């Protein structure tokens, strides 16, 4: 189809930018390593300092891969939610999915002190944290879906998302009175969001969930496109609404839940990237949007992470701060230019 051919160039451009931003992300860090040495280490050759090769393989590559997976997953889950709710302001963070995950994490991290009778402190580890925050995000997602079937108003949904944020904050405040400083700090650091703490085995779990979510989205491509006309039209064209809605919700939950579990609640990427992508790919066809959003999300988070670690200094800013600085203006811009909310 000639329609699709005009997107070849943007896709190639995105591919090149993705490659460049990966290299940039690998090349810059708290320890300054000359760029040719980075390339040398990547190809598998030796570096002039033993430690450089170690830093690159055990720190920078996992971090870059995490950024790619997190950025792609969040953006795809944002796109799915926007189509599912037919609401341009939907996204895992604004709808409170991330708050749900935070609540799960907070209850686990700080709650262990309270119900220590049941759980020993050793119960708190990566896996239990991942499970707790995934359960939290799934629960909120279910509530949001229940509400969305009753309330058609898009603003009401957003306010509900905000309320979940408030509830989380309130419960965290209450819990923090009863916890030791050490656990409070652990939670706070988790809530800052980071892509730098994953080891290779955690990375595999994240990669698997991104793949699973992407696979389910590809299966849903046709129904996603039909849903653009609204549920009644979709049904009249032979879409099995209930089934495809479940698949899309499960995909969203897996994508947003796993990311938040491992990388913390990362703000705005899921909401902003689909809109930024639509500025380049002026289409509503999910066959184009899904791969484009995956690539764009990866690029944006790689760049945010590069900024967050303040190259050559030993400071690392919370990545959440960077994504919010980029993401919040996008939301404001969307609201001011109503026309851009058309999707």
């Amino acid at each position, binding site marked *: 189809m000639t329609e699709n051919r005009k997107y070849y160039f943007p896709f190639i451009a995105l591919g090149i930018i993705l490659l460049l931003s990966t290299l940039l992300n690998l090349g810059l860090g708290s320890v300054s390593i000359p760029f040719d040495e980075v390339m040398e280490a990547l190809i598998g050759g030796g570096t002039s300092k033993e430690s450089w090769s170690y830093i690159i393989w055990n720190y920078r590559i996992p971090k870059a891969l995490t950024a790619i997976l997190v950025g792609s997953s969040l953006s795809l889950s944002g796109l799915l939610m926007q189509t599912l709710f037919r609401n341009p302001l939907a996204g895992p963070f604004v709808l409170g999915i991330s708050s749900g995950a935070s609540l799960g994490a907070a209850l686990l991290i700080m709650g262990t002190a309270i119900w220590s009778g049941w759980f020993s402190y050793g119960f708190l580890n990566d896996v239990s944290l991942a499970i707790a925050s995934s359960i939290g995000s799934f629960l909120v997602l279910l509530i949001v879906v229940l509400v969305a079937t009753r309330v058609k108003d898009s603003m009401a949904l957003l306010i509900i998302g905000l309320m979940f944020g408030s509830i989380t904050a309130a419960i965290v405040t209450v819990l923090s009175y009863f916890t030791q400083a050490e656990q409070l700090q652990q939670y706070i650091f988790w809530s800052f969001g980071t892509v730098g703490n994953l080891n290779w085995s955690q990375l595999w779990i994240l990669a698997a969930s991104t793949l699973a979510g992407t696979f389910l989205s*590809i299966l849903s491509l*046709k129904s996603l496109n039909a849903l*653009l*006309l609204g549920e009644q*039209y979709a049904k*009249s*064209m032979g879409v099995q609404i209930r089934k495809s809605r479940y698949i899309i919700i499960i995909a969203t939950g897996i994508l947003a839940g796993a990311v938040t579990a491992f990388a913390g609640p990362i703000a705005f990427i899921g909401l902003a990237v689909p809109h930024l992508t639509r500025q380049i790919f002026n289409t*509503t066809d999910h066959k184009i949007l899904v791969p484009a959003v995956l690539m764009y999300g990866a690029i944006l988070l790689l760049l945010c992470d590069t900024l967050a670690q303040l190259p050559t200094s030993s400071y690392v800013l919370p990545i959440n701060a960077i994504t919010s600085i980029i993401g919040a203006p996008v939301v404001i811009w969307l609201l001011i230019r109503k026309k851009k909310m*058309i999707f």
Partner: protein
Amino acid sequence: MLTSRDLEVGYRTQRETISVSRHISFDLSEGEMGAIVGINGVGKSTLLRTLARVQQELSGSIEVEGTPIDRFRQKDWATKVSVVLTEPLAAKNLSVEQLIGLGRHPYTNWIGMLSRADMMKIQEAIELMELENLKSKKCHELSDGQLQKVLIARALAQDTPVILLDEPTTHLDLYHKVQILKMLQEIAHSKKKTVLYTTHEIDLAIQLCDKILIMEKGQNSFGSPEALIRSNHFDRIFPPDTIRFDPKTASFKIYK
């Protein structure tokens, strides 16, 4: 082609059943255009949505091509009946061509790729509705009349023997109302499709439709416009305090 026998439509909630209209019987054949008319709230849209299988009938039967409609599998149903609804489009950034292309949904493969045959059907629908020069426009750039034509073209691309439309001419000026209705009439007659729509423009329906279904509280009548005029059915649609039907001009007159 499209028949209903003693149909009762309404809503069923967990607690109660609300019957909106009952004893609806009609029979539209291939190549006929029919209109559903009646006062606000009498259940025109409910009937149309029931015929489109969007909601369940309470009792009675509906048949398409002689088969009860609940016998069709969702996918086969989509090749029998297409709809044009009043619900606003969710995605206004769809291009005209893409939107019409979505009509091919029941025929495309799992990923929704359009084949050469699909493209030809889309082109045919575009030509029929005279949308050639709007093809690459976005839906939010269209006027109400243009958008309505695009939505009808989408239903045409779905290539079904029956097309149902819920108030296709609301929000349009008289010129565009007539234009759309004449196009629908042309589609019914030349493409041998069964077209049924709800409307408040009774005088236009009398001039253009082959059959009319008049919905009233407690009673529904169906027939050709001439027969319905002769039997004074149009006089009973509205309460007699403001307007009356004038059989000579086949239109409504205001009491002076």
